């Protein structure tokens, strides 16, 4: 989904923070905050070999667009970009990039944190962690 102020993407290939930065840069925004979520080597002491992300794409795009629209409506934000990766990721791979530009920095921090917190609650994307000795769908069980 794309309009002048929102850039939402689900990609099967590498995410690129410079394209996010380029989209959200704006003459009226002095503060840009980017969140980049990467695959960590360890989860609760267990060594991760790789991750697999699966998305219910049309609904994920819709929910990510809702988050971006909420930010434009409730924060003094100029532009919002949310890019999410799907498929197999190795350690260090980028799973998500969120960028928000605002006239002032505090708003950009708050809005970007709102976006990633909400994404993790509402966007239909699932993550399977593959360890050396098994695999698990993250957060599936209490």
């Amino acid at each position, binding site marked *: 989904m794309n309009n002048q102020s929102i850039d939402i993407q689900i990609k099967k290939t590498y995410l690129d923070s410079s394209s996010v930065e380029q989209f959200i840069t704006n003459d009226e925004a002095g503060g840009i905050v980017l969140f980049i*979520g990467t695959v960590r080597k360890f989860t609760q002491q267990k060594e991760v070999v790789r991750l697999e*992300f*699966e*998305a*219910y794409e*049309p*609904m*994920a795009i*819709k929910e990510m667009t809702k988050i971006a629209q909420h930010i434009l409506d409730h924060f003094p934000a100029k532009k919002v970009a949310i890019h*999410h990766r799907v498929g197999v990721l190795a350690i260090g791979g980028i*799973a*998500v990039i969120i960028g928000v530009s605002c006239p002032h920095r505090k708003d950009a921090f708050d809005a970007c944190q709102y976006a*990633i917190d909400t*994404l*993790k*609650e*509402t*966007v*239909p*994307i*699932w*993550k*399977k962690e593959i360890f050396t000795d098994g695999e698990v*769908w*993250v*957060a*599936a*069980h*209490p």
Partner: protein
Amino acid sequence: MNIKLVAFGIAKDILQHRELPFTVQSDATVGDVKELLKTTYPKFKKLAKFSLAVEESYQSDDFVISEGQEVVIIPPVAGG
């Protein structure tokens, strides 16, 4: 009536299919389908939670499902 289940993440592992025809009572609600899923596939009871989506949106338990509709099972999400 028949509906079409679509399953992602661990729900796909439980159903062992991405898509599956499923028979429910006429005028079944989202709540009814969730109960029937738990009875038919007890592993759904062990999930932290799960939701159903119709027409690409989360639907509450009282949403009435139509014949032939696509009902997507959304186990706990974990993006980012």
